[in-house]
């Protein structure tokens, strides 16, 4: 996690950069990104025909040659600025203006460890695929790769890889199992028909994945070993942060529920269950569920909230102490935040993932209303409607909020006391 304690929580307002001026200097300026602490704003800019650079706080990177292509500009959690760039068909990640030494034929799917110290990409060179972390590609590469992940500490990377070649329409060979998972490039010794979304445990020593044995039997595999039971369907597993048990949504004859280490965990059945999460503090387990057809909500320890949403529920998060859950609920294309089963009395055109204050008593979120962006805390709007804002960040004591916004083309960093919302 990013340490916010040493950020500037005092300066009320800073005009960091006037993007209108950037527009005068370049042919075009792409959509901007801001650093976690709000001190910097950056965008890919076009400097000439098929020539690109990155501009940060009004200053272009000093690079030897302009990029012919650049995309996926992002700030890492520790505030470094990364872009995926190409020149002469050679692709490299560039970090704060400095390129990696390794050259690839293509790179994509930029990822960071929780602290931002590890930067990972998916890569292809000579039609062989592998992941690369901090400029070090896997030793082994594969003909096909999907579902890339990076462990929380960035020391392990994994993906679903193809280990057996398949010719065109070789369906029966495919059904014998041509895929497995590779961890830091090393494959499991067992293949499956499909290997999908994976998760590492807290220290990165174990990997769990959803698999299909044949076209019909689904289960969970942990470090290459499948659970004994096969299910009608499964979704992405996770590890319990304290016990290391593996928890996954599974489809039984009478509906969806959660299983833990191949035992049914919840008595309740739902028409859908996914995106389960465990609080390290309270050890409560919550998941997004459809309590009946077309009625979406959150279930905590198997018990669904009374409130349901017709369109969808997304972006669930536990409060820091694990006592509450907040999520986005959508009904008839109207978005709102639902905090522990209580929906905000505010309908928006879009809402971003809710953010709890450190003491868990407040919830803030970025919202879109009438074509403008702003921030809301506990259902109350900030008094500014902006062209763009970024997701709010609470100060360590929870009394203030970092608001990062663009108004009339100018990018501001503001610290607003929570009681002003």
């Amino acid at each position, binding site marked *: 996690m990013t340490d916010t304690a040493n950020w500037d929580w005092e300066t009320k307002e800073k005009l960091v950069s006037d993007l209108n001026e950037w527009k005068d200097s370049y*042919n*075009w300026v*792409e*959509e901007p990104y801001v650093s976690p602490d709000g001190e910097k704003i950056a965008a890919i800019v*076009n400097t000439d*025909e*098929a020539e690109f650079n990155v501009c940060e706080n009004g200053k272009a990177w000093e690079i030897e040659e302009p990029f012919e*292509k650049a*995309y*996926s500009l992002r700030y890492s959690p520790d505030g470094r600025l990364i872009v995926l760039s190409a020149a002469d068909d050679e692709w490299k990640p560039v970090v704060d203006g400095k390129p990696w030494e390794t050259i690839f*034929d*293509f790179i*994509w*799917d930029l990822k960071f460890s929780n602290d931002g110290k590890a930067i990972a990409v*998916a890569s*292809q060179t000579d039609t062989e*695929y592998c992941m690369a972390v901090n400029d070090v590609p896997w030793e082994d590469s594969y003909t*096909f*790769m*999907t579902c890339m992940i990076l462990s929380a500490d960035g020391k392990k990377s994994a993906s679903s890889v193809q280990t057996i070649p398949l010719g*065109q*329409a*070789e*369906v*029966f060979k*495919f059904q014998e199992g041509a*895929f497995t998972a590779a961890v830091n490039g090393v494959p499991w010794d067992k293949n499956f*028909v*499909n290997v*999908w979304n994976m998760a590492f445990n807290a220290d990165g020593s174990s990997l769990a994945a959803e698999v*299909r044995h044949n*076209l*019909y039997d*689904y289960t969970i595999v942990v470090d290459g070993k499948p659970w004994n039971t096969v299910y*009608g*369907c499964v979704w992405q597993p996770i590890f319990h942060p304290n016990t290391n048990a593996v928890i996954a949504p599974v489809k039984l*004859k009478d509906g969806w529920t959660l299983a833990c280490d191949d035992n049914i965990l919840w008595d309740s059945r739902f*028409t*859908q269950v*996914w995106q389960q999460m465990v609080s390290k503090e309270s050890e409560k387990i919550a998941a997004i569920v*459809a309590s009946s*057809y*077309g009625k*979406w909500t959150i279930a905590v320890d198997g018990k669904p909230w009374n409130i349901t949403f*017709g*369109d*969808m529920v*997304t972006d669930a998060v536990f409060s820091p102490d694990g006592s509450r859950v907040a999520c986005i609920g*959508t009904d008839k*294309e109207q978005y709102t935040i639902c905090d522990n089963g209580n929906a905000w009395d505010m309908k928006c*055109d*879009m809402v*971003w993932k809710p953010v709890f204050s450190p003491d868990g008593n407040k919830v803030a979120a970025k919202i*879109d209303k009438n074509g403008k*962006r702003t921030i809301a805390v506990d259902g109350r709007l900030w008094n500014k409607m902006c062209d*763009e804002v970024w997701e709010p960040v609470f100060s360590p004591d929870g009394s203030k909020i970092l608001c990062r916004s663009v108004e009339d083309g100018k990018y501001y960093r503001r610290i607003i006391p929570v009681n002003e919302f």
Partner: protein
Amino acid sequence: MALPYIEYEKNIIDQGLETGTERLTKERIAKVVDKVIGGETGARLKAYVDTCVHCGLCSDACHMYLSTKRDPKLTPSAKVKRTMSVILAKKGNVSPAFIKKASEIASTECNLCKRCVQYCPFGIDIAYVMSVVRRICHLCGVTPLYIQDTAHSHSVTQNQMWVKEDEWIDTLQWQEEDSREEIPDCRIPLDKEGADFMYSVIGPEPKFLAQLLYQTAIIFNAAGLNWTMPSFPGWDNSDMAMFTGDSEIMGRNKRFHYEAAQRLKVKKIVMGECGHAFRAAYDMGNRWVSWAMPPVPMVHAIEFYYDLLKSGKIKVKEKYKKSVTLHDPCNTIRGRGLHEKARYVINELCENFIEMHPNREHNYCCNAGGGVINCGPPFKKKRVSTNRIKAQQCADTGAEILITPCHNCHSGMEDIIGDYGVDMHVKFINDIMYEVMEKPGLE
């Protein structure tokens, strides 16, 4: 001029059906039928099968029946009689050879186009019954080879054509680069969080029809739209798993698709000119997941073009001169009622629009849909020879251009007019819009 009838092939060998059947046991069939009839289908299936009085009112609805000098085997009710009626009567006690034949009938002799249901006094939905037959055959492991491979591709890549993740992004960047020769600051914005909409396409676009992505970039940039495309899986809205009866993979595909939109925080998804993908995303796949409606509003290209023209965001420089006719795709017309919007769009873009008859919701299917074209080369001739009526319908218009706002229809119609020698070219609305629109910012 009356087009000739072509005898259709009866003994087609398909490796998927052959090998699958060799491996199938009667025990497995019984288990599968019990699972599907006992657990997955309700009273509806039995009611459909029991209610049919074989009155034959639906027969003339089916293009296959009409195209084969009224072969009684190809009436809608006969397709049920030859498959589901037997499975139900024998309570699943049927042979692997029977399942092979049932799979061929359900997968290649019915497009699930739902034309016939409109003429049945009892509203019997033959397409639904055929889908259940396909589900049974899938669980028995007996599905035509090529469409099975497509379903495998969906399972691994979440796209239809084994397009790798880097190939997808590379193709978009290449089209974006080319588009800058026309509009210097043209963009295909990837992963632009909070854009107004996400544009999604089907696997064949990056694989074979990249010019459609190019043209779309020009249209959207000219209209000044705030849009995005995902760089990650979920960009493909199509779903052949829906047509093989692999509901779990269908649901997975739709989950990826809608989660891509949720992750990008867009207010809607605009999809390209595809019929079956609309059905998968609007009706079938979302419902398997338990989204009663699309969780993010889903707009078909026809509706979107209508809005662009109606609002004046796209202006026509000079209307298209050649005479055009329209094939109404089943999934967006019978499935969604977009026929008048399609006509508005075409009349705005083209000078000389000639209707084919019958039209709108009564239009005959292209015979490619329902996954039939995806069953591949073994069934191509049969697909063409069982749709003479469509070729005749097109030929009778005398139009030079055939507009088909659906990918499957597009390919299927090309085969049909080609083999029957109808002098026409097939185009998407996108092709014509790109050609006739005003392009501000053009150098």
